[in-house]
């Protein structure tokens, strides 16, 4: 009489405990070694900015070497770096450099982070096409973003209140812009925080008061990119200017590995700087390192 219900119970217990343990084990099989000791599969995790590039590269790479697997997960630079610190991934993607504290954390865990620049990303300041302003200096940009300038007529535009758009604080671009343009000062308190680059493009395209920043790869006809002047004259965010290094708002995108990359990780990094790999960098909208 009790047998059947007991067996039900036991089955259920088994299933649930398996599910729980299974969930606990995810991420521990990162360093999957082949029989000859060479890694045949690597795991990469981190920045959402680097994600489309790494993914495109991985697809081409795996087509060329069908027996090798490169699996890639986004989640943000911080997530990738945390995973590297905990030795859960082979490569961490980051759109910012690791912080002092993070490097110390890693070393305390016996991980020795090595930084590799795999590409450059241009950041473009965008306004609505209706806006007559077409260039801003770093000082003007900073004053707009910290709140010292709040009307377009102070920078040669129409008499309109400036609506300042920013990314959220978990974005690598948010931190890059803050360090590069605002000298580490805090964004004005009433800046509109947008959850994604797409939302910034959308808002700027329909609001003549708005100003925002986006990756150059996202530029389209609905917004107008501004020329930016860091003190050496205003420069347009064109690919020529970014590659020549004259456009000031360009940042490196990084891979981080534990020690110098070896095995499949090394092969993948070398593939990205190969001719095929560099063509892919351009195609995704970034610039080769």
């Amino acid at each position, binding site marked *: 009489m009790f047998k059947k219900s007991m067996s039900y119970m036991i089955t259920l217990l088994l299933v649930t405990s398996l599910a729980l343990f299974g969930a606990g084990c995810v991420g521990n099989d990162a360093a999957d070694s082949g029989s000859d000791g060479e890694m045949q599969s690597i795991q990469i995790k981190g920045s959402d900015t680097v994600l489309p590039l790494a993914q495109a590269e991985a697809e081409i790479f795996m087509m060329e070497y069908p027996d090798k697997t490169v699996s890639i997960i986004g989640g943000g630079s911080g997530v990738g770096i945390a995973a590297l610190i905990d030795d859960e991934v082979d490569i961490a993607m980051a759109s910012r450099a690791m912080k002092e504290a993070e490097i110390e954390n890693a070393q305390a865990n016996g991980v020795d982070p090595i930084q590799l620049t795999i590409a450059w990303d241009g950041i473009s300041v965008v306004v609505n096409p209706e806006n007559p302003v077409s260039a801003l200096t770093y000082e003007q940009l900073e004053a707009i973003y910290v709140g010292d300038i709040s009307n377009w007529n102070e920078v040669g535009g129409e008499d309109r209140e400036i609506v300042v758009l920013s990314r959220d*604080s978990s974005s*690598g671009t948010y931190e890059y812009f803050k360090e590069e343009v605002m000298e580490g000062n805090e964004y004005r308190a009433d800046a509109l925080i947008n*959850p994604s680059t797409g939302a910034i493009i959308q808002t700027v395209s329909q609001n003549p008061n708005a100003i925002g920043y986006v990756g150059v790869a996202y530029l389209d006809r609905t917004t107008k990119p501004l020329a930016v002047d860091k003190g050496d004259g205003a420069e347009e965010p064109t690919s020529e200017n970014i590659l020549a290094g004259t456009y000031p708002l360009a940042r490196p995108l990084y891979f981080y590995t534990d020690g110098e990359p070896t095995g499949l990780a090394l092969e993948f990094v070398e593939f990205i700087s190969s001719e095929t790999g560099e063509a892919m960098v351009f195609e995704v909208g970034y610039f080769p390192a």
Partner: protein
Amino acid sequence: MLDRKRKEKAIESTLLMVSGVTVVALFLLCFFLFREGYLLFGDYSPISFITGSSWYPSSSPAKFGLLPLLTGSLIVTAGAIILSVPLGIAAAVYISELADPKVAQIIKPFVEILAGIPSVVYGFFGLVIVVPLLQDLLDLPTGQTALAGSIMLGMMALPTIISVSEDAINSVPTALKEGSLALGSTKWQTIYRVVLPAALSGISAAVMLGIGRAIGETMTVMMVTGNTAIIPGVPEGLFDPVRTMTATIALEMGEVPQGSDHFHALFAVGSVLFIITFIINLIADSVKKKYRLKEAV
């Protein structure tokens, strides 16, 4: 005979297991949420968390002030409730008491479809249609305001409010209505004085469910309210950008270093949200019980 008993036992224990898992999951969730949130207060004073008026999680020193997020959530929710409750109850009364059954048959599935639309679609609609509309109509510097959030949330809460209130109104005994009509009341008097009071417990539950949905909603609100962490004034804050607790968690969870103060601060915000939702449920429950007693008498 014995076999059937055995089967029943098996079903019973299966159900027990399933509900047991639910309870355990909830407790574990609470435990981790509160523990991670509590860790913030090792480095950060709880008083400045609760009374702080600025949220600067990544500056140094970081500021984790709950007030702008809390008031942001409250103003968006209040706006949503003000918009959706009268509309929802009116629609429920119309569908169950006034509408031609054929018309009601057409309206009902539409309301249900409204409930099934994913919130990101509402958010996109809000960002592309409602936000520019508000910006033009009210001549605001930006349409990404608490009001935009309230309108979208109100729209999203409507199906819940309509269908739950409608159920409540439908379950009012016909004898009550007939009695009222027999005494010479008009249809309107009957609805206003008899049907609505009798259905009040269900309607209150509907409103509470609506509030619960509104305060916990994330995606749509994040897309249309501008996410500016400033304490809004009342009522003019409706026309300013605001940031809610849910949007803050969603926006910042992505890249926050695990185990940092910022990480724990987001869990602390989550704990506050959990407590608020819990209180709303308690109130809804007690309201239900109170009116049920009255009905029984």
